[in-house]
Every structure is written in C-alpha cells, then in structure tokens.
C-alpha cells in the first residue's frame, strides 16, 4: 500500500507531536474527511492526547487529595502531641497536677504555660503540682521559661509545687534562681498531694 501525504498534513502532525512532547496536550491534529489510512493515525493521536489529559487531571486530583490528607494528619498529630504533652489532671478540687515527660524545649514550654495558666484560671486552682520525674532534659533557655510559669501561676493566686526533680535538673533550677524561695520542691508527687490535702484540711498534716 502506498500513501501520498501532503507536506501540510505532515507538518501538522509533527507540530502536534512536538507540542505534546513539551507537555502541551491541547494542540490537536486538524482533521479533515480524507479517505486514507493516515486519518486513523491522526485521529488516534488526538485520542491519545485526550487520554493523556484525562490521566494528568486524575493525577492532579490524586495529588491534591494526598496533600489534603497529609495536612489533616499533620494537624491531628499536632493536636494529639499537644494534648499528650500537657496532661493536666484535677487531682482534687482546686488542685491540678501536671506530670511532664520527655524533653522540654522552648515551644513545648510555651504550650505548657499557655494550657496550664488557662486551666488554673478555669478551675480556680489553689495548687499546681508540676511533676518532673519523667523529664529527661530541659533545654538551656527553657528552665527560665518554666520558672516564669511558676511565678505566673503565683500571680493567679495558686501555689506551685515541683516534684520529682532529677539530680541533673536540680543545678539548672538553682542556676536560674529557682531555689530562692518561690519554688516549693518535694521528692514525689504523692508527697506534694499529701501536703496540699493536709493544708486544705482534707488529710492529716504530713511530717515535714
């Protein structure tokens, strides 16, 4: 079978292929009612471009969906981490306990301060017990932030007690002036709770 193709048709085909190669699938082969086998090829190229656009649209939609899901997961994770990092417990009416676990950096200290001060105000708390038993390390500039929080709790009319201070954390507190009287420290969370309940008259005063 021999086929005579006009220069114009051949150029038209090449233009479409070059455009498609550079990612532009909107340029199509101009179709005319030519009674020859090349028409099938020309139409086939247009159909292929239709499919490429369809798949590109599907890919873009999937990418967008993935991005939305990723953002949602990240937000949920942030919320979960924030909730888990500041588990404020009402140990007794007016008595809040916050067991801190892990490393505390500036961002976490800021979150803890914000959440805790909000709870102190909301619960009209008289005492706050900060348990540092699970605190492995406190970043350099974070200790002053924690001590500022202790003072802020005092300004809200509540007394702050620190428990579970580890030997490597104690010097940090001293260095920041935290042992100057406004920080009350006890060995264990249970000691602090017993002391507070005794002050409230709910328990016999423990031996000091």
């Amino acid at each position, binding site marked *: 079978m021999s086929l005579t193709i006009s220069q114009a048709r051949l150029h038209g085909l090449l233009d479409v292929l070059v455009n498609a190669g550079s990612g532009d699938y909107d340029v199509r082969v101009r179709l005319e009612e030519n*009674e020859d086998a090349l028409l099938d090829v*020309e139409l086939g190229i247009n159909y292929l471009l239709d499919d490429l656009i369809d798949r590109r649209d599907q890919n873009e939609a999937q990418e967008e969906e993935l991005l939305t899901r990723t953002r949602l997961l990240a937000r949920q994770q942030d919320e979960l981490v924030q909730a888990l990092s500041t588990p404020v417990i009402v140990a007794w009416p007016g008595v809040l306990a916050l067991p801190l676990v892990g490393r505390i950096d500036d961002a976490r200290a800021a979150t803890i301060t914000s959440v805790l001060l909000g709870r102190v105000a909301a619960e009209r708390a008289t005492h706050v017990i900060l348990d540092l038993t699970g605190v492995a390390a406190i970043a350099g500039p974070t200790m002053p932030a924690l001590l500022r929080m202790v003072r802020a709790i005092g300004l809200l009319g509540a007394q702050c007690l620190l428990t579970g201070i580890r030997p490597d954390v104690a010097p940090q507190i001293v260095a920041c002036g935290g042992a100057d009287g406004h920080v009350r420290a006890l060995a264990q969370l249970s000691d602090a709770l017993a002391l507070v309940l005794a002050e409230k008259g709910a328990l016999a005063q423990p031996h000091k």
Partner: protein
Amino acid sequence: MRVHVSGDISLGDAEEYVAKFLGQYRGRHVLSVVASGTEYSAKARKHLLAMEEAGPHATVTTSALVRSAINLMTRSTDPSRYRVFGNEFEAMAWLEDQEG
C-alpha cells in the same frame, strides 16, 4: 435493531447504549447508522469497548472521520462482530450472513 447515532456522544449516552445492547437487546444484530460530524468523548469511547460482548454490529457511515473513529474503537475487537460499511445494503447483507 436499527440505531441512528448523531451529535456529541457523552459517557451517559454510551452507558445507555451499552446497557441496552448487553441487557434487553443482548445478542441482537444491530445496524447502526452514524451521521457525519458525530463525535465520541474519551470516556464514551472507553465505555463502548464493553460492546465487544454484544451481538454483531454493522455500522453505516459516509464520513471518513466517523469511520476512523469506529476503526480505532473496534481495533482490538473480534472483526467478525463489528464492521463498518459505506451503505446500508452492504451492511444488511453482512448482518444476514452473520445470521446464516
């Protein structure tokens, strides 16, 4: 069955067509007269591939473009089930042969 096809064929049109010829008209011999200027959307073309399981189809068209479109859509199908003709006389003769 005799069917007249014209205009822009959407996915909905293709779904209706396939549902009929794989449903209540399954196995019937079909004479499909397709007008010049008829165009099939990409989704319609894909859906019409399911017609492979329908009865013998003879398409009649005078348009080279429509013929090319049908050729491309039926390229991978059994040639004894689908054929394009330039006039109804030849198409009917082929369909009768299929019956015979």
